[in-house]
């Protein structure tokens, strides 16, 4: 496949933004400035970006509790995301959602979701809207390896297949369901094979390799836009950090993460190939790095200083009318 350098630069910018965002969140959690729980996406950047590069604002994604990367990849405003994570006024959910419920319908982001396995049926509904309203839009559900075992996922796969919906099931096998390894919790071992049982194309790809993810997503998204029905992709990319930030990770060999950083860094892999084969310059990537660092410094400072929601906000937006 040929890759437009502008597309690649955009993809790099999004992946770098996710990495910088998450590393910064990690430091902020350790410094005690962040309320609640955050679940970091480092190591999986190529999955969200490899998919969302193919999507428009009018396409929908359903996300997970580990949703920051999906939000950034789909184009949510980083400043408004940070305001939300800090539960401040002006956040994407006005401070009432927090890290695990960030949503932005203007960007087609149907919400991070703190219930494991809850978002696939919702995304199927978005795909049903696309079909019923006669658009060529699609819906994507990001599903962790842990969630892949939930019955809701099987129900969603079945409905998408039966109704031939423009839907992509984007499995992210990051190796662990909370503190339990995929080698134990995943009956049959291969998620993609389960999806193919519903009669849809399903393939497993190296989720650390942006190009592999990007190509697989192109096939799935094109098929959905052509009205040919759902697909599934299993992207395998280990997470670098704990289930949540602060997780002691007693289940994990401490050297595993060192090995991942050294050998399975999606950004390094991307840079190596993009500079060697597709003409991107290391300098221009470093410029992006600096811009991103500055942007996030800026937005974190704004979020920390921003006002909290007013007391009245407790009672608003439960209903449209009541």
């Amino acid at each position, binding site marked *: 496949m040929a890759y437009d350098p502008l597309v690649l630069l955009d993809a790099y910018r999004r992946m770098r933004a996710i990495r910088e965002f998450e590393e910064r969140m990690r430091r902020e959690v350790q410094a005690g400035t962040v309320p609640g729980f955050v679940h970091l996406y480092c190591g999986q950047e190529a999955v969200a970006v490899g998919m969302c590069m193919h999507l428009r604002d009018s396409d929908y994604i359903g996300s997970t509790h580990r949703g920051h990367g999906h939000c950034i990849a789909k184009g949510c405003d980083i400043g408004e995301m940070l305001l939300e994570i800090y539960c401040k006024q002006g956040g994407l959910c006005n401070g009432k959602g927090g890290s695990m419920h960030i949503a932005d319908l203007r960007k087609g982001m149907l*919400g991070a979701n703190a219930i494991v396995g809850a978002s696939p049926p919702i995304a199927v*509904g978005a795909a049903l809207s696309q079909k019923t309203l006669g658009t060529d839009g699609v819906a994507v559900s990001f599903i962790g390896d842990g969630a892949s075992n939930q019955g809701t996922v099987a129900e969603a796969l079945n409905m998408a297949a039966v109704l031939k919906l423009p839907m992509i099931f984007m499995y992210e096998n990051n190796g662990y369901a909370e503190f339990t390894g995929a080698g134990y919790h995943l009956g049959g071992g291969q998620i993609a094979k389960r999806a193919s049982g519903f009669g849809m194309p399903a393939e497993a790809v190296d989720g650390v390799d942006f190009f592999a993810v990007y190509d697989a997503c192109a096939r799935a998204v094109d098929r959905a836009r052509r009205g040919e029905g759902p697909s599934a992709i299993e992207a395998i990319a280990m997470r670098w950090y704990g289930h949540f930030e602060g997780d002691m990770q007693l289940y994990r060999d401490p050297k595993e993460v060192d090995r991942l950083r050294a050998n399975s860094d999606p950004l390094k892999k991307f840079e190596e190939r993009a500079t060697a084969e597709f003409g991107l310059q290391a300098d221009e990537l470093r410029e992006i790095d600096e811009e991103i660092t500055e942007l996030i410094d800026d937005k974190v400072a704004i979020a920390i200083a921003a006002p909290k929601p007013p007391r009245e906000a407790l009672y608003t937006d439960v209903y449209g009318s009541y």
Partner: protein
Amino acid sequence: MPVKSYREAITETLRQEMRRDKRVILMGEDIVGGMGGSSGVFEAAGGTFGVTAGLAAEFGRNRVIDTSITESAIVGAAGGAALTGLRPVAELMFIDFIGVCLDQILNQQAKFRYMFGGRCTVPVTIRTLMGAGYGAGPQHSASLHGMLASIAGIKVVTPSNAYDAKGLLATAIRDDDPVIFCEHKFLYGESCEVPDGEYLIPFGEANVTREGNQVTIVAFSRMVLLANKVADKLAKEGISVEVIDPRTASPLDKDSILESVEKTGRLVVIDEGGPYCGMASEIASLAACEAFESLKAPVQKITPPHTPVPASAELEQEWIPSLAKIERAVRATLSANL
């Protein structure tokens, strides 16, 4: 004015709302029926109780969608479709099945608007069947409107007659919040005058089905019919009973209930939901908290016992609040004095 059954009124409303707004779609198990069967019959069911019969012929299978038996996908997809431009009406065949898909209501649809900071609407209606009396046994007979009414973010509707069913269903479909519309399976054959044209009944406005000044009965769904019968019987003895049908369990028309209790000083609550943490307890609590000074007698709660619904016809009849029990409760409250 034409007389229509509760079933006919609901079908007519679905048809009118689908004609009025292309974004309204129906989805559920066997709401058409016959897909994949060997007979080739276009509509093999029209819903288990025939409520959606004839709609697929008019609107096509893309708007009247038969699904697999997957309640989480039906209700969940209806919620996702509601977030993204449709106004789905999902059918949950029996309210008992809410156990299979409660997450999509409790944690998803009910919370979307709040947790997304008010930046979405969730115009989904879930039609479902409640109520005992068919010998259908413990898993097809429950009345869970009280449990659902405890969930912030959803509205719960319990029509007791055909006229209300039509106006309340139209309101539900046009409402921008999730609505659980609880149809009582024993009411489908009950008829009354129902206009052909469209009309809306606002949520949170009780209907006073009998006016009186000695005792207030608050009753939901099918229990309103029983309450009316008891009120009519006692009226012949000169006992004046007021019957209030809140029509929606959430929002609840507290003002109408309190106004009546302040007038009569005596309250009987009848509900087919359970005796604990349900609408009967809620309304008894409302009277105790907000009309205590007006009460002349202890509040009487008439509900089924704290058990599942039995299959045995004899036991089931014992389980359902009866006319005799209601009458006894009214007489008891009249003879008690605080």
